């Protein structure tokens, strides 16, 4: 076997009693691409944060180039040649490619930055890597794909020998993906080792040498890519049926007859020709990878984006949803992904957050009715078992699961006819996940229609009456819940 560049042995990490990683081993050989696969919360990002020094493991040994070395902080990781490749975050938009690559390491000449040297070195580096950019182009003018290539060049100029990619192709076009893979192959041949995190099986099988699967914080397997097929990896990701957290229980109340929402030939930036309908009390699941158009669909329905074509009908009437105001007027609610940025004001109290979307319900003659407000909030808190010191506690102090329940309460108090949910259980502990999913079910029995986007197929299977599978903006499958035999079936459809 070739030279071992990195070994992680027995990595464990807990957050407030919840084990995010449990005795995980992971290693990297010089010049290999090692894919890391697993569902949300499987422990991939925790493992990589330990590797890049953002987190400290509770237990375990890290060996870099056979030396037992503690990686205590991001600087240690960088000294050991370990770099995370971000998509665009770490580049300064109004500086040039060359200035970004040498940022903070500028060669000096007589007390000033040696610009000529920066440009010539950058040019040499770009040529060597086959990146068709010039050193003086500004980052702000580049596409996401090229930004990523610049990131890689930057890492290599700083002598990186281990690169970590997290979903690098999520927002790339297919020609950009080809360019990225070409570069990755070149790096391999030069002995750079790569950790490649992705949900896209085809890409993983295209580029990786080995695959490690994580599930619920444990390593399920590591094997050579050539010895595996997509089915085997999906099986490992999903685990045995007995270990699954969510099970479908038949509905007490059948789906209503009223057609609440009809979407006809909807097209957008990614979406093309999407049609479906949603009945009263129905839960429609949307499965698909990031970039498959699933978020765009919800954002069009909530007036955040414009559709380029197609028609929407609500309760049989043609409607235009050009703004959030229009969507709220049609009694649509959206629980957005990324609750910290789009969902909650973290510095505000539980009460203020829960009420902000339904202020009109606690206003009389232009005045807030504090007593009524407290009543509504206290009811939400007990109904959704939100664990909080009081309704005046700052939301930022609550756990992720409780924050998510606050976000859900905020929208449920608007009593929507159509509830849109985008990854409602991301970054949430298992107990809260189950509560949130049960809650969606309870609502649907009460007649609320819901569209649920989730990366976790098990979740979709537990609560959805029907599942649409999106791939590259198109509906590739539309399945009734009782017609679905297994999670694998959906996973295969997602991969296209």
């Amino acid at each position: 076997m070739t030279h071992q560049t990195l070994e992680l042995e027995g990595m464990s990490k807990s957050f407030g009693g919840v084990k995010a990683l449990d005795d995980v081993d992971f290693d990297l050989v010089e010049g290999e691409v090692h894919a890391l696969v697993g569902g949300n919360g499987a422990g991939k990002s925790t493992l990589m944060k330990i590797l890049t020094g953002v987190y400290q493991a509770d237990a375990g040994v890290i060996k870099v180039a056979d030396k037992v070395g503690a990686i205590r902080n991001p600087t240690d990781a960088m000294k050991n040649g370990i770099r995370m490749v971000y998509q665009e975050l770490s580049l300064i938009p109004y500086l040039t490619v060359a200035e970004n690559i040498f940022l903070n390491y500028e060669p000096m000449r007589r007390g000033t930055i040696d610009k000529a040297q920066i440009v010539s070195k950058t040019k040499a580096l770009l040529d060597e890597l086959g990146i068709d950019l010039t050193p003086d182009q500004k980052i702000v003018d580049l596409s996401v794909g090229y930004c990523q290539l610049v990131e890689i060049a930057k890492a290599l100029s700083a002598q990186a020998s281990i690169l970590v990619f997290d979903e690098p192709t999520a927002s790339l076009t297919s020609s950009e993906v080809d360019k990225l893979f070409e570069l990755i192959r070149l790096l391999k041949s030069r002995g750079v080792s790569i950790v490649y995190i992705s949900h896209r099986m085809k890409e993983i099988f295209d580029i990786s040498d080995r695959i490690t699967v994580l599930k619920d914080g444990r390593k399920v397997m590591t094997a050579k890519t050539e010895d595996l097929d997509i089915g085997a990896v999906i099986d490992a990701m999903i685990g045995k049926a007995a270990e699954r957290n969510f099970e479908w229980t038949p509905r007490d109340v059948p789906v209503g007859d009223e057609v609440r929402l009809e979407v006809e030939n909807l097209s957008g930036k990614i979406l093309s020709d999407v049609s479906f309908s949603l009945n009263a009390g129905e839960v429609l699941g949307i499965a698909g990878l990031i970039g498959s158009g699933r978020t765009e669909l919800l954002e069009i329905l909530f007036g955040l984006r414009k559709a380029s074509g197609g028609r929407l009908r609500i309760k049989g009437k043609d409607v235009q949803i050009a703004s959030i105001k229009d969507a709220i007027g049609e009694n649509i609610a959206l629980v957005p992904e990324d609750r910290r940025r789009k969902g909650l004001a973290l510095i505000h109290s539980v009460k203020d957050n829960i009420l902000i979307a339904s202020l009109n319900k606690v206003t009389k003659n232009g005045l807030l009715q504090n007593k009524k407000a407290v009543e509504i909030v206290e009811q939400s808190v007990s109904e959704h078992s939100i664990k909080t010191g009081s309704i005046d506690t700052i939301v930022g102090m609550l756990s992720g699961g409780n924050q998510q329940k606050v976000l859900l309460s905020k929208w449920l108090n608007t009593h929507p006819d159509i509830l849109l949910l985008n990854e409602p259980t991301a970054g949430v502990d298992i107990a809260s996940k189950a509560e949130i999913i049960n809650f969606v079910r309870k609502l649907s029995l009460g007649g609320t229609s819901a569209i649920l986007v989730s990366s976790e197929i098990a979740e979709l299977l537990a609560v959805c009456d029907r599942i649409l599978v999106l791939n590259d903006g198109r509906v590739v499958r539309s399945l009734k819940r009782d017609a679905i035999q297994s999670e694998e079936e959906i996973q295969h459809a997602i991969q296209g």
Partner: protein
Amino acid sequence: MPYKGNHMERLIRGASKINIQENIVYFAFVIVVIFFIFTLGDRFLSVVNILNIARQTAIISIMAVAMTFVIASGQIDLSVGSIAALSSLVVALCLRETDSLVLSVLVGLFVGTLIGATNGLLATKVGVPAFLVTLGMMGIAKGLAMWITNTMAVPIMDKDYNVIFGLGTVAGIPILLIWTAVVLIAGVFVMHQTPFGKKILAVGGNETGARYSGINVERVKMLAMCLTGAAAAFAGILYAGRMQAGRFTFGEGDELTVIAAVVLGGTNLYGGTARVVGAVVGSLLIGVINNGLIILGLSVSQQIIVRGMIVILAAALGLSARKR
């Protein structure tokens, strides 16, 4: 275990969690007052002097109430001092030409609100940062104030006006103090008892989140700017009443004193929190310090230095409040 509403428990929790940083203005106020009582004695603690402080700080306090809304919504307004100057002249001219008190005051308020609305439009629809819009507007309003009378002051002969908006007293209380109380009560009420106050805080606390909640973010920001415009115009009306004239130098430098008062009062400089009462106490604190320094015999230049230090102190407090 789900949370059970227990009012007593919540009261106790609230009391034990009084945040010193957010309430620092009250502690500072008490300390500074005690300091001056001990060092200056009766020269500080006389009815005449206290009413004097109240009169001098009233105009700043009124602008600080409105500025609390602007800062809480995540914006800033640097044009208030210049708007006050312009409005004092507009009112004085209008009084001279029409002799109508009501009309003149309404015209003054209208001009201020219009400038505020312009600030708001440029900041929200065009997207120029509020800091730059109002910095530019500070110059424009000041220039207009100098231009319309060629830098001449315009005396106000209307006795009623001067009594109602400057020199009068009600039951021994200076009328400026009564105006301050009216604006303060209105500010507290709007901030805490109306949906508009909640929307201001939501926009300042998380603008994207507010937009996703269906709040018309642009409208809220614009209305906040109209509030400071109107309050600054009212400040100009009071300046004119107190000095019995309109003059382009009124309000010079007030924008910084007002912002300092708001941030000292515990409002987060970056938005999302609002302390309306704190802003007025902040303004009083600055007034007490100014007054005490004068009695102590500090020169004008020394006072300006101390005022600058207060602005920095306020900004530092705002920053550390944000880091929490």
